[in-house]
């Protein structure tokens, strides 16, 4: 009886301590999420939650956590993962970025030597041991920072980012899909050794790049046995028009259907357009109303074809505009937020919220 009473009190305590989630958010199934990067200020996470999102995709940059071979700095990741979880939002990370003691650049994956590959395996193992189910963070730092809050372990791990772009994967050669496949296999084995139930998500491939997303995936599938090492495919269908958006998803689905019986879930881990002024040189910038229009049209297109294309998640990129000039080399990224940097909502914010609360 005493145990039962204690259990009831504990449950009540968790209930009282848990943050209030808006009723409307309860209707959300979590189909729509956000893709953004910490740090978050005090207003970001509560406002994200009020849109109904249940998952937020964030980068976990290996070089930031382990800048030296013998040091691990978890504070920034603890804060991001913890602040989101305390508001009922599960983190979906993509893990990326070789540290300086292994590679000259972040975008050179840890392949080509046992030293690099073992260091990556060890890092992934530590990540899952910390943030996965029964992870050490949930009973330690998380309870200290968010007493009584419910744990939301990370259960899906996205391996690297945009491997068909020079900006994220070097070198880009004909062998890149095969090298990426090796990274996926190594990562799968390391992560599953700690959490057998973890889902392995392929990096989002950019639709129109060299090679295209579908060409890259076709070459990836040509690597014998690769299907065993991932559970979810991902694409970033950046496009100037809805026709291009449709073409990317149709072509990617065709490859998945051909090689994987069409059952592999597809996540759109970055979908976005900028609200900056549209020009021919910046075709992904659409102006504030155009950004809202593209959001609506693309979301409706995905919802209409969700079953056919096996789309299981869609993450909008970005949540809030960075400080001007924060994103070098990407002319729509400075303005792809739903909010301006000042937190002022754009027209796209209301549109996103409408979709996320009801799907």
């Amino acid at each position, binding site marked *: 009886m005493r145990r039962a009473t204690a259990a009831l009190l504990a449950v009540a305590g968790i209930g009282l301590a848990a943050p209030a989630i808006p009723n409307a958010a309860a209707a959300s199934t979590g189909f729509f999420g956000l893709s*953004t*990067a910490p*740090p978050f200020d005090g207003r970001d996470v509560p406002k994200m939650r009020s849109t109904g999102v249940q998952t937020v*995709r*964030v*980068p976990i*940059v290996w*070089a*930031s956590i382990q*800048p030296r071979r013998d040091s691990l*700095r978890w504070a920034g990741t603890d804060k991001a993962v913890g602040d989101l979880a305390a508001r009922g939002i599960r983190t979906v990370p*993509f893990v*990326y*970025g*070789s*540290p*300086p003691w292994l*590679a000259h*650049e*972040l*975008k050179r994956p840890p392949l080509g030597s046992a030293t690099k590959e073992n260091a990556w395996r060890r890092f992934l193992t530590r990540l899952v041991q910390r943030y996965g189910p029964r992870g050490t963070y949930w009973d330690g730092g998380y309870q200290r920072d968010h007493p009584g809050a419910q744990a939301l372990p990370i259960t899906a791990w996205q391996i690297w980012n*945009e491997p068909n*772009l*020079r*900006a*994220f994967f070097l070198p880009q050669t004909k*062998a890149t*899909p*095969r090298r990426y496949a090796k990274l996926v296999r190594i990562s799968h084995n390391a992560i599953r050794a700690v959490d057998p139930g973890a889902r392995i998500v392929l990096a989002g491939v*950019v639709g*129109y*790049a*060299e090679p*295209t997303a*579908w*060409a890259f995936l076709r*070459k990836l599938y*040509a690597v*014998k046995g690769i299907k065993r090492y991932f559970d979810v495919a991902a694409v970033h269908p*950046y496009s*100037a*028009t809805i026709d*291009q958006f449709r*073409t990317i998803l149709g072509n990617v689905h*065709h490859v998945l259907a051909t090689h994987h019986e069409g059952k592999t879930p597809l996540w759109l881990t970055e979908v976005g357009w900028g609200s900056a002024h549209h020009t*021919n040189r*910046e*075709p*992904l910038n659409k102006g504030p109303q155009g950004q809202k229009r593209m959001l609506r049209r693309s979301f409706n297109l995905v919802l209409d074809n969700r079953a056919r294309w096996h789309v299981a998640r869609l993450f909008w*990129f*970005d949540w809030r505009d*960075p400080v001007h000039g*924060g*994103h*070098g*080399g*990407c*002319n*729509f*990224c400075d303005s792809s937020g739903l909010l301006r940097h000042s937190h002022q909502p754009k027209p796209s914010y209301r549109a996103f919220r409408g979709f996320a609360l009801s799907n």
Partner: protein
Amino acid sequence: MAVVVAVLAAPVTTAVASPPAVDQYTTHLPGAGGNSGLASSSAPVAQPGQLPASVRADLSGQDGQVLALIATAPGLGAPAVTHGGGEASGSNGNGSLATPAAVEGASASPALTTAVADAAGSPQGLALLGVLAAIGVAAAGVRLVRRRRSSL
């Protein structure tokens, strides 16, 4: 893309990737209003020299030119070529037309099949296949008319 901000925000002082010089998200987009799926604005160019001599010999006439274009133009998805023995046609007359998968050691379909399949996946490829079909129908029509005339 989110990673750029994360990296900038992170207290890492070394090994931070410099931003790409060009916007890699838009470099390969089809032209505004277009839906070509081509990587550049230049028209696809056939490279029939990459084909084995025996295949080249079979590709005569207008439809042969179209087939050669599909099979060898990188803009239409034709695979890159690796040269065995120094030149495309090779010392024995059989060129080394390797698919990327073959280069990587995995099983692959023959290059021509791959190229046609690649091309068929794009609007250009479909248009070209449509042209081929039209040529075929026209040729069959001409043949039929000739037969009828000769039988009269």
